[in-house]
């Protein structure tokens, strides 16, 4: 394919030069042809580039150097020029190609280094996030086993509570990792079915509230919002993770508002709070895998928001984060979806 394109370019450039040679003389044509070789060397492999170099040399000789339409060269000067042309074209081709090879190598190494860094971050974050609750469970169980007689009922109760909390935390981490690997595999197909947004939002809020919440969550959904054809599991996970994030990283008594609206065949979800908001430089990175704010409290893998983004995009939607003028963070999600009102059914 590239060979064909090379021959074609040489042909086109030669024809163009043929018309222009009356105005610029045949020696200038050599430079135009050289540029062609250089350009082709920037994009094509070594074989088509060498072919171009040889072809242009022959073309220049055959069509442009007098006597025309022969491979003979009339003057000694033109003979030297032709040999020099041939060498320059070859060197040009080979050098350009070598530079490109070197660049490729550098890019490959950078990519690998990036992958290794990501992998290390993952391992560090994971081993910490998984080992902390495991250490708690093993330690607390050992303590209950070895010191059972000496423990006060209060301490025993606290140790049992620690085991239970650690178990829940482990489960949450595993859930996040499974979701992330589903997204990474690239096989995430949303299972679209009719969703009652009201029900999904209230379920997610109830789910969050069972773990104990010190903030105030307000829900604002128009009772006449239509049904949307979306993946209810993904939607619930999106809402849960965003609420979980707000609950984890805002102080007690913060107000959290969750709203759902319908704009012609687009579901818009907003989740905002009047907490401290995000540092401006972090806003573009919070959806990155394993990204965590430097000062944030321990107890997260930095996967929650990237899963939110992954699921939103899997359904064809977009997510944005901004700090509110009056303080606090605001997440806005827009997902295009088929809607259904079914108002005519009400009296069936």
């Amino acid at each position, binding site marked *: 394919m590239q060979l064909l394109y090379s021959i074609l370019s040489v042909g086109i450039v030669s024809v163009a030069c043929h018309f222009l040679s009356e105005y610029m003389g045949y020696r200038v044509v050599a430079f135009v042809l050289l540029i062609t070789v250089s350009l082709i060397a920037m994009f094509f492999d070594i074989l088509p580039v060498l072919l171009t170099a040889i072809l242009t040399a022959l073309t220049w000789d055959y069509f442009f150097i007098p006597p025309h339409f022969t491979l003979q060269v009339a003057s000694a000067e033109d003979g030297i020029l032709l040999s020099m042309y041939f060498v320059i074209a070859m060197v040009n081709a080979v050098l350009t190609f070598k530079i490109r090879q070197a660049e490729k190598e550098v890019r490959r190494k950078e990519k690998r280094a990036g992958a290794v860094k990501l992998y290390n971050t993952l391992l560090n974050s994971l081993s910490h996030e998984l080992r902390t609750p495991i250490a708690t469970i093993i330690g607390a169980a050992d303590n209950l086993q070895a010191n059972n007689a000496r423990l006060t009922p209060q301490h025993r109760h606290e140790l049992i509570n620690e085991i239970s909390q650690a178990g829940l935390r482990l489960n949450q981490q595993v859930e996040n990792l499974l979701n992330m690997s589903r997204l990474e595999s690239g096989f995430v197909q949303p299972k679209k079915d009719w969703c009652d947004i*009201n*029900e999904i939002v209230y379920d997610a809020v109830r789910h969050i509230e069972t773990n104990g919440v010190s903030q105030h969550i307000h829900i604002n959904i128009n009772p006449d919002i239509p049904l949307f054809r979306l993946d209810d599991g993904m939607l619930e996970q999106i809402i849960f993770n965003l609420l979980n994030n707000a609950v984890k990283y805002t102080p007690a008594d913060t107000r959290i508002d969750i709203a759902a609206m319908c704009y012609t065949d687009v579901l818009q979800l907003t989740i905002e709070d009047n907490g401290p908001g995000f540092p401006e430089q972090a806003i573009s990175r919070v959806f990155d895998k394993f990204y965590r704010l430097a000062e944030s409290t321990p107890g997260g893998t930095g996967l929650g928001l990237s899963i939110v983004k992954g699921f939103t995009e899997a359904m064809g939607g977009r997510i944005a984060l901004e700090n509110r003028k009056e303080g606090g963070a605001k997440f806005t999600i827009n997902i295009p979806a088929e809607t259904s009102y079914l108002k005519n059914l009400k009296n069936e």
Partner: protein
Amino acid sequence: MNKPAILVIDDEAQIRKLLEITLQSNDYTVSLAETARQGIALTAAHPPDLIILDIGLPDDTGHNVLKELRSWYTHPILILSANSGEEDIIAALDNGANDYLVKPFRTGELLARLRSALRSTTHELSTPVLDINGLQIDLAARTVKKGGIPVKLTATEYTLLALFARNEGKVLTHQYLLREVWGPGYISQSQYLRVFIAQLRKKIEDDPNRPTYILTESGIGYRLVSPE
């Protein structure tokens, strides 16, 4: 009343141990099986009041055990599943399981499901009037009262509620509900179900947004429970 007998079929020793202790300390009689064969043999020898079945057994899939058991065993079967894959759970419910729990589950939740499933078996024998914690459904007169006050339901709403009431505690899948209430042609028309569930909740729940009678099983279906 005798202690209800529960058979646990699970290949994981830790889960068997956990369930044995939990159930015994809550006044159930427990027998244990670690393979499908053993579970079926035990069920045939001493039919329990309820079976807790792990869907991922080594010698036979839980689905096959479920089908085999359901050909003659009529008491409730509760499924345990290690993955929350909806297809797996829906298949189990369609094959006659009454309810399911995804590992890891909370003990309180397990006990509530057991009570609910065991209660539902007694309904079939009693009067045409079902009383589900203040919600009275008269299947003969086709009337519904809440706290003694009549609730006006449309024909479809009533059909839906009566179906739930006859299957109290049991998870009914979207497809099952659509087929039973609207007919086989409506199996993929889940928007009908969403709309009517919302309407029914407005009429029978104290707070339709925080339902206590008709609970949602996300991605799977709904079930009617007695609030405890």
